[in-house]
């Protein structure tokens, strides 16, 4: 579903992402890990077309970004760390609005989408009145309505309460069962361990490790936390 080759991004003299090669299969849940400043968000921004790569190529669903960006945009939906809500729309209206951008109608499914994320009681509240966690849920509900083949999620559990995190994990596993590919970056190793089929660990713009949690465990420490610490501290 995702095919990234030689992806590099420089900001002046600084190299944020260097020569990144990454493939994510259809229906796979891929966890993107790394310490702060490792280049995760930069990679995601390039993947979503929000940032131009300095070099390298990207393809989503077999379609090259540079060659056919319009088709690529139909294949994925993006949930940034800061949800891009319209403050004066209600949650239900926002779901309708986002769906209309993708040429989809969700009016008859909005309640189900919101129920899935425990947000139904906020259906007719203005987005500006939502807490950070609820805002994340609202945007997630909106893009779930589109049912894209690929979901790109940047720090999706930031601001979610334990119940919300649990629901999110269940949701991701359901999506995987339905064949949706999920690319998520997070610092919450518990989420990665439970829902991700494979993980990639990024440090200073370079991919340090790539594989399933079990595969990486065999090469490293006992827990994912130990493995992560070992990988990222060794790269310093």
């Amino acid at each position, binding site marked *: 579903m995702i095919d990234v080759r030689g992806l590099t991004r420089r*900001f002046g003299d600084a190299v944020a992402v260097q020569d990144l090669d990454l493939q994510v299969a259809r229906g796979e849940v891929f966890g993107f890990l790394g310490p702060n400043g490792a280049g995760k968000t930069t990679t995601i921004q390039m993947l979503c077309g929000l940032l131009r790569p300095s070099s390298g190529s990207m393809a989503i669903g077999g379609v090259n970004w540079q060659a056919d*960006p319009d088709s690529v*945009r139909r294949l994925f939906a993006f949930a940034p760390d800061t949800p891009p809500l319209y403050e004066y729309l*209600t949650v239900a209206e926002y779901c309708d609005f986002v769906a209309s951008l993708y040429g989809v109608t969700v009016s008859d499914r909005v309640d189900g989408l919101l129920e899935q994320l425990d947000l139904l009681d906020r259906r007719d*509240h203005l987005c500006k009145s939502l807490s950070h966690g609820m805002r994340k849920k609202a945007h997630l509900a909106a893009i779930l309505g589109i049912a894209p083949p690929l979901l790109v999620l940047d720090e999706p559990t930031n601001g979610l309460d334990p119940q919300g995190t649990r629901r999110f994990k269940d949701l991701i596993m359901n999506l995987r069962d339905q064949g949706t590919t999920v690319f998520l970056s997070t610092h919450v190793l518990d989420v990665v361990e439970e829902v991700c089929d494979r993980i990639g660990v990024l440090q200073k713009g370079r991919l340090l490790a790539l594989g399933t949690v079990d595969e990486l465990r065999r090469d490293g420490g006992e827990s994912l936390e130990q493995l992560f610490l070992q990988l990222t501290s060794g790269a310093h």
Partner: protein
Amino acid sequence: MLRSEWRALRNTVRTKEGLQALAGTLIVFACLVLVGLAVGSMLMESDLLERVGAPDGSMLSVVVVALLLLPALLVLAFAKVPCRNQLFAGSHVTTWLASPVGSRRIVTMIWVRQVAGAYLASLAIAGVPMVAVVVRADLPIVTALAFLVVLLLVVGAAVALVLLVMVVATRVGSGGRWRQVLLLLHFAFVLALVVLLLSGVGRGAQLRSWLANVQLDGAWIFQVLVSVARLPVELAFGVWSPQSLVAPMVLLGFVVVALGGAARLYRTAFEALLCATPSGRVTQSSGAWPRTAVASLVHRGFVEAWRARGSLVLVSILGAVAVWRPAANPFVPLLDDSIPVLREVFFLQDSWLPLASVLAMLLFLGVIGDEQKQLSLLATSPLSRGDLLRSRVVLVGWPFLLTVVMAALSGKLVGGVGWLATIGFVLTASPCVLILLGASLAVGSWPAFVPVHSEVPLASNVRSVVPVLVLSAVAFGLFYAQHLARKNLFGHGDGPHGSAGVVALVLLAAWGVAVIVLVATYRLAHRNLTTLLGPQ
């Protein structure tokens, strides 16, 4: 806390972004100072002052300026003026609140910042014209000092009112019922400001005679200061070449600024400055949502505009009060003093046309300028660049269109302008609006001003200030040209000045140029969007 504030400011200025932000702030201040100088200068030259009964006009002008600028400085003090945002950023207030520092000290600190912000803004916009008028008028020094004291008192009273509202808001928190009460207070306060404004214009002569009785010799040091201050002021006056026509335009601009921004003042005070949580009030969702992208984007814009800008309702109410003049109208005694003056100055002197330009400047939102937070959604969706641009044409264009219609109607109904002049206004103003719309599309989508990509080099202050300044200049120039054309072609409604052939030719040329400019700027905006959001 003061030290940490100072360090944060110092570190900000040391970075490239900080320097750019500072540059944006200085640009804003420079513009405010220039506007202030222009206002002071034009008031001196305008016959507005004589019309309201001031023989020499100099003293009254000070009062008029103070009264007219009072709402404006309040707006400036609490709106998101870049300088205040940059110098008095408040995001770390919550850190202070969670710290062991005493809450009294924290509240004092916040208040000091707000008062300082209000005073800085007010001195920039109200103090400069005051000083300009005082210097220009060669008033006795103590009289001049008395004027300045009046200014400071007026500003102080305004700040005190704002603080009072803040106190009330802090006490009542963010409960739904109390929010309604505060909203009513807000409307009452703005209404009081408008009444004050009108009565100040209508009864300024009385204030003038009172102030004129202050006649004492001044200190020599102040005379030296006046002499030094006179030089740049004279230079500025020379550059601005004051004309009586422009004075009411600027005054009207301030009135509009005050009306349009007053609601924002309170909303900001309640929700941002006081960290009050917005109420979780249930809102009636709109019915069936449009399915096509353009219709959805336009619908979204109108829904949000309606919900976010309650001040439009207030402006409508005030407009109705001003126009509605039967004997039962409780404002008649007050309006009898003020409306005739305003009517004569703004309408019969041909100066009512710039209303459109002022409103257009205020209503400028840019192509995607008001959706910058949503760019990650818009840019990653399959939304066509053409659809986005078409929706923005509607959302940016409708305030312009509405402004032209309202200006024409107000000229006809309130100003007593003839039908021919009214039609002339519409015919000559519309091409200007088309050009302004195109300019808004092109400037508002200019890649350097829109932070889609993180490599956008400009600091946010420059990014937000420069487009508005560019468009303001375009709008002013356009409508001034339009005014001259309309005046020479149509007059006041007592028959066209030029021959029918000349009128038709000029109108045809104006419309032709407008359409060409609109098409060109539309294409430019499309290219900008493609650069910003990627090709399709």
